[in-house]
């Protein structure tokens, strides 16, 4: 186990292994996305309340769920950076931050597009949208801190601390926003809960879409991390050999 752990920490090993995974991940993503999207857009029955707009859910929910996973992931990677000083963990942490910001932004955008037909406005201070917005700010903060610190080592540790503090804060933000929201706008709490008692023809394609978007997320993260590995290890022999081979 420990050997595996330290081996995983080797950027070169990770680079080579992830290179083998990528084609399979691509293939799986294409299958899931194709099935999920076709099913969701063409075959899912329109909602009796929301009509055709329910189909936006099949993009919004996967994107939002991934963006929620990014902060804990960044905090875990940060903890590994601080405790075991594993360089690979910091590369992952660095690459997750912009992806998390993008997915938060996409979740906000798709939420707005969904909100317009439902609520009649592009933006409302709904609990989920509000906490998503604050989470987006948190990601921006981590990215800003990373780019402000010149020393790579110091940036790694500083961002790790901020990620951990932020991850402790995310649930607090979520609950305080929900608590704040219940009194202000109870009317806006239309169920966006995918696990609500719905017939399988609604949630099965949703699960497929979630899997597809997760695969997309993993592929993006791997590509970014591989890129980061090459940049940071550019002086090492194996990277230079790789470049020479073309």
């Amino acid at each position: 186990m420990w050997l595996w752990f330290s081996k995983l920490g080797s950027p070169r090993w990770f680079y080579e292994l992830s290179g083998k995974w990528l084609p399979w991940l691509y293939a799986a993503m294409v299958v899931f996305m194709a099935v999920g999207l076709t099913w969701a857009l063409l075959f899912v029955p329109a909602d009796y309340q929301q009509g055709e707009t329910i189909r936006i859910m099949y993009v919004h929910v996967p994107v939002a769920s991934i963006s929620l996973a990014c902060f804990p992931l960044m905090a875990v990677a940060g903890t590994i950076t601080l405790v075991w000083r594993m360089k690979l963990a910091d590369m992952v942490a660095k690459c997750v931050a912009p992806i998390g910001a993008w997915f938060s932004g996409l979740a906000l955008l798709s939420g707005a597009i969904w909100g317009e037909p439902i609520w009649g406005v592009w933006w409302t201070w709904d609990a989920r949208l509000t906490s998503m917005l604050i989470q987006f700010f948190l990601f921006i903060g981590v990215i800003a801190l990373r780019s402000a610190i010149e020393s790579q080592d110091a940036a790694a540790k500083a961002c790790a601390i901020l990620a951990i503090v932020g991850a402790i804060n995310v649930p607090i933000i979520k609950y305080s926003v929900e608590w704040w929201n219940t009194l202000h706008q109870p009317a806006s709490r239309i169920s966006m809960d995918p696990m609500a008692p719905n017939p399988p023809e609604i949630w099965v394609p949703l699960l497929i879409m979630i899997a597809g978007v997760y695969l997309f997320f993993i592929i993006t993260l791997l590509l970014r991390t591989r890129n980061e590995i090459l940049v940071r290890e550019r002086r090492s022999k194996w990277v230079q050999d790789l470049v020479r081979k073309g």
Partner: protein
Amino acid sequence: MTDKSPVSVADTQTLTSLGKAFRSTLSRDLLIAFKRRNDILNPVMFFLIVVSLFPLGVSPDPQQLSVIAAGVIWVSALLASMLSLDNLFRADYEDGSLEQLLLSPQPLYFMVLAKNISHWLVSGLPVVLLSPVLAYMLYLPSEAYGTLFISLLIGTPVLSLFGSIGVALTVGLGSRGLILAVIVLPLTTPVLIVGAKAVADVSFGLPVGTHFAILGAMLALALTIAPLASAAALKISVN
């Protein structure tokens, strides 16, 4: 030579006790703040000015102002706390006192806590004390004064503590600009939400015991983790 005895390896028993070191750091920071009175005055003046801008920008109508008073005062207190944060570690970083603090054989958690307490006494407490005056100027319903005061009294230390993490992370940076606010403000949203809602709710005649309990829990959490995170961040910043 004032030196008397041959040097030997230090005996940790004779070290300054934690309590004394804590008081020494606290009184040093208070003394510095007292010598630079602007450090005390600026946050309060900023608070006063920002709050005064709202009647000018929104409307002097008492009804409108009394609705937004709680939020305006809370947001202004948050911004005032943010702007005063830079004093917390900057001078110490630049003159090397921070290195000496990190190299002292005292637990860093308590040393950072002492600095945070001093900072709050100087920049947070005056804002809290001034808040009833501003509440009056913004026509906050009189039954909400006590709640505003108490919520700020519990809430502003949390702002200072969370802010301290941000300052500790950025104190070594040459160009800080707005990065401190970008890092810290999102972290402080729960305090703002609960604090402002307590004042708003009491104006509607609702009970606010839960609000204070939540604020108290946030303060307890901040007291536990923020000095640790700040200490770790300071070590990185001097590295």
